[in-house]
């Protein structure tokens, strides 16, 4: 049993909140919900919509058509989405909105009688939709109270909306009601960072990385850490390196444009070996692109960020469960190996809400600081693993030094070729150990067991998994570590494939290039989407 609900209206009419409440109420009733959010880059007016996909089975994508119910806060929603509705679908809307197959809700009257704010129309309408789908009021009520800070008026308004319509397309009951998580990719990064022990999050606002800045800022006091917004991304990156050098577990976050500005500082990370975690949330690009929409065009930028050669980690989670777990891994690897860990995500993953059964982190990050600083401490001691024991300034008597120049073990500048070789070798010696570690972190996952293979990475996972349910003879190979690239695990996963198709949300197939570079394998068949919209199962199925 699956249903799809579209909720639309102008910016400022509470579309996203309504979708969150309704989605969460369905999760409470034991359903799996995927909540897609679509909004243009403006603050008031325009057209925002959310699509809720609700199912008794796990679901992690939506379609842009096939709606069972359209909740329309304005007429534009009807005009834009009427053509996408199922034949027997209904529109739930206030009296003023004209639509066919409409169930009118007298929101204006209810608002007037309750003396409620106009924005509460959103609650009245979703409550009517809730009734139409035959859902019991109590779970919605509980969710409204949770999400709207115990607003009793909202509950009364919802009750009135609930009474306005008759039950129609009954959703039925889920096989099992149990506690599940309803969480976006952004929330999962934020919680992952907190779980990892973050001390400082430093950022400059840029969609779609901004929600992480907001979530972390909102809970900084509760978890005793700090969130700082500095003058620009260059300051963010450099200050973050300073902070991490001085002992704080530090993460920065931005989107493509901001990360490009940080490039030089990432290179400084590489030379100075000061641990750092960077969250990169892609939008459609190049340049300002389509800023509130999605894309996967920055993969090679992430892999190649900064000038010169230095080891780094790039991890690409595919859903909020993975985002949480991979964020912990990013911290763990960055601090253990004194490298840059980049968590690469995108608008689709960052701003969609997913239903998650549970989390199972594989690592426990820590500061990885030496217990005692020896008198003759060497900041860049050459060791077998290439990892020099990490101390922080003020810890022992010996100076702790970090530098952007090539250097000797004490961190003094050296321009002789001999030191350039020694230190490059030291830095790259880490890669072997990071690779071994990554191998134990399920860098490549396979779903299903057909002979034909879909290869992809990141947020496309949701649509691909849902497409897979309707496919015979296909399996899906998801690459989660891009750097260091798990070549062996990848080749094992695609072994014996009679057909391989690459699926990416970009113009040229960037993972395909990386696979070719790292394994020599060239994937000819590609399904690429670059209209700034995410994949849906149908989009993939039609093109296979």
């Amino acid at each position: 049993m699956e249903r799809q609900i579209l909720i639309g209206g102008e910016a400022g009419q509470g579309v996203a909140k309504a979708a969150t409440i309704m989605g969460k109420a369905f999760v409470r009733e034991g359903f799996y919900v995927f909540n897609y959010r679509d909004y243009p880059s403006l603050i008031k007016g325009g057209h925002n919509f959310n699509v809720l996909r609700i199912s008794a089975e796990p679901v992690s994508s939506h379609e842009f058509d096939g709606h069972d119910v359209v909740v329309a806060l304005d007429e534009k929603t009807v005009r834009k989405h009427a053509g996408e509705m199922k034949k027997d679908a209904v529109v739930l809307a206030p009296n003023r909105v004209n639509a066919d197959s409409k169930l009118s809700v007298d929101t204006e009257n209810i608002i007037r009688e309750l003396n409620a704010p106009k924005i509460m129309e959103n609650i009245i309408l979703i409550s009517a939709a809730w009734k139409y789908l035959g859902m019991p009021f109590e779970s919605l009520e509980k969710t409204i109270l949770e999400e709207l800070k115990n607003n009793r008026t909202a509950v009364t308004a919802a009750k009135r909306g609930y009474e306005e319509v008759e039950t129609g397309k009954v959703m039925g009951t889920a096989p099992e009601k149990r506690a599940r998580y309803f969480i976006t990719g952004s929330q999962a990064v934020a919680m992952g960072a907190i779980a990892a022990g973050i001390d400082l999050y430093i950022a400059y606002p840029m969609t779609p990385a901004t929600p992480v800045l907001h979530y972390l800022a909102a809970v900084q006091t509760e978890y005793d850490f700090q969130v700082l917004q500095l003058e620009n991304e260059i300051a963010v990156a450099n200050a973050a390196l300073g902070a991490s050098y001085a002992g704080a577990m530090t993460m920065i976050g931005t989107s493509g444009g901001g990360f490009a500005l940080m490039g030089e500082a990432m290179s400084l990370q590489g030379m100075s070996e000061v641990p750092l975690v960077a969250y990169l949330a892609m939008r459609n690009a190049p340049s300002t692109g389509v800023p509130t929409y999605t894309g996967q065009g920055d993969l090679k930028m992430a892999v190649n960020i900064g000038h010169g050669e230095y080891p780094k980690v790039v991890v690409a989670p595919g859903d909020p469960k993975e985002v949480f777990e991979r964020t912990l891994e990013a911290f763990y690897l960055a601090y253990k190996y004194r490298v840059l860990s980049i968590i690469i995500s995108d608008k689709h993953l960052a701003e969609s809400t997913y239903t998650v059964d549970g989390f199972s982190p594989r690592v426990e990050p820590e500061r990885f600081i030496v217990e005692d600083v020896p008198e003759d401490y060497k900041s860049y001691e050459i060791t077998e693993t290439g990892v020099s024991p990490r101390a922080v300034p003020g810890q022992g008597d010996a100076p702790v030094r970090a530098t952007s120049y090539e250097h000797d073990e004490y961190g003094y500048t050296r321009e002789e070729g001999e030191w350039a070789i020694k230190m490059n070798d030291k830095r790259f010696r880490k890669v072997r150990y990071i690779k071994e570690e990554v191998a134990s972190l399920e860098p490549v996952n396979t779903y299903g067991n057909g002979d034909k293979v879909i290869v992809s990475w990141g947020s496309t996972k949701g649509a691909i998994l849902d497409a897979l349910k309707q496919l015979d003879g296909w399996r899906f190979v998801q690459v989660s570590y891009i750097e260091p690239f798990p070549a062996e695990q990848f080749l094992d996963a695609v072994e014996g494939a009679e057909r391989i198709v690459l699926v990416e949300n970009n113009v040229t197939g960037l993972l395909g290039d990386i696979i070719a570079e790292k394994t020599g394998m060239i994937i000819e068949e590609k399904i690429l989407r670059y209209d700034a919209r995410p994949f849906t199962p149908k989009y993939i199925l039609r093109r296979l």
Partner: protein
Amino acid sequence: MRVNQNDLNTPVENTWCPGCGNFGILTAVKGAIADLVNEGFAELKDFVLTADIGCGSKIYDYIKINGYYGLHGRAVALAVGIKLANPELKVIAFGGDGGLLNEGIAHLVHAARYNSDITTVMHNNQVFALTTGQATATTERGFRGKSTPLGTFEEPLNPITLMIESGATFVAREFSYDVAHLKETLKAAIKHKGFSIIDVLQPCVSFHDTTEYFRKRIYRLEDEGHDPYDREAALKKAREWGYDLDPDARIPVGVFYINDEKMAYEEGWPSIRKGPFWKRKRERRWEDTIRKYVVV
């Protein structure tokens, strides 16, 4: 433990040109740190320097204390970050006029505005020296360098007024050959709570030799009864010389401006106020964080 300033020497060979104004800065900095340690202001292990890229920034290699040698223009941003992570550290950022006022001016202005509790030392030779002599933001009009053979005509920037207006709470100018004075001002700047900056006039004997020009025109603010707590007087004094090398100039040095009342940036943050992060044991369980999003 007493520290002698020679204890701060490093084995690195100094590569500044003979006669370079940077030597005076190096001596004064080592002297100031040794004094502050000996006077019980802080332990040696609590001093940290950050450096830009440029001739002056080579100071990183010549002082044996904690240090982070950063990127061109970014020494101040690095320093701000260090102080946020551990407010107990005494952080000094070194950079040239090119790094601080050209490449990285945003960081300088904002660090002053934040009133971040760091000290910035500007090796102001009014030229990009390490890249062999191009004009910077403080170069005088009419300067003919390799990149400006026709001569520059842009008005120089006045870092003193800029810093006072940006919100810095300790603003001074010194002359690199007056080591004793520079040392005292450095000590006061480091002790100051809030953003302090010293614009050190540092002749570059190879590309911008202003040694004689300055010697003849410099006078000390305290000799003329300047009150550094008077903001308007400070701005007025700051405007006396605009960095053009005009022959009639009188050039004030010393402390222009002090404001002891403004809260330092790091004091505003409840978690940072508690002291160094690295000493804290985090006992967050991942189950407790993610629980925020559970639906029951």
